[in-house]
């Protein structure tokens, strides 16, 4: 791993297009700003890994028997994103 020292307000630039700037240091917390092309996904590592693990566990060959879904507890509302209105 490359390790560099930077002061508040200083940056590193990665691959000519991604800028990581030290915005503030407050005790053990470092606030960083990242400028990257919009198609470059940026995630907090622990959240990325949690979702990655969940995706890997959820992966199937598409041939599983499906459970029957119960109605959710709260009353249904007209959701504009509902793909299959009953």
């Amino acid at each position, binding site marked *: 791993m490359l390790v560099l020292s930077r002061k508040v307000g200083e940056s590193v630039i990665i691959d000519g297009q991604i800028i990581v700037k030290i915005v503030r240091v407050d005790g053990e917390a470092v606030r960083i700003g990242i400028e990257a092309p919009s198609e470059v996904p940026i995630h907090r590592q622990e959240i990325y890994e949690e979702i990655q*693990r969940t*995706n890997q566990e959820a992966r*199937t060959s598409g041939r599983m*028997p499906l459970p*029957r879904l119960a109605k959710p507890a709260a009353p249904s509302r007209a*959701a504009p994103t509902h793909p299959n209105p009953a």
Partner: protein
Amino acid sequence: MSTEPQNISAPGCQKLHFPAGLLGFERIKQFTLISRQEESPFKWLKAEHDETIAFLVVSPFEVLTSYAPDISNEDAALLKLGGPGDAELYNIVTLRRNGDSSVNLKGPIVVNRHTQVAKQVVPHNASDYSVRHPLPTSD
């Protein structure tokens, strides 16, 4: 219940483009969303060029009617969403044989229904939701 192709009706197929793939599956950019009436409200998200990769998805509102992920401006811009009506939401289901199935509400898939461009996003309020939200089953 069998899901063998020869036993079921002709499915609805919708091709989706994921410029960033799914988290952990970044190289797969093209998926097909397959809907069959007898499997509703579930749909299958299948990798277009790899028959061995499929995810079961469901509208989150079938699971939690109050679901309200706070999508970042960057993600909305990337997907060119003008408003909530432009988006369809799907969440990935983890099926477990012991019946302990769950839905990932922390990493929803947002689809622009006009362009078919999609992304698995991490909403600002992701900490309000679980990657293992219990799937409410009736059997």
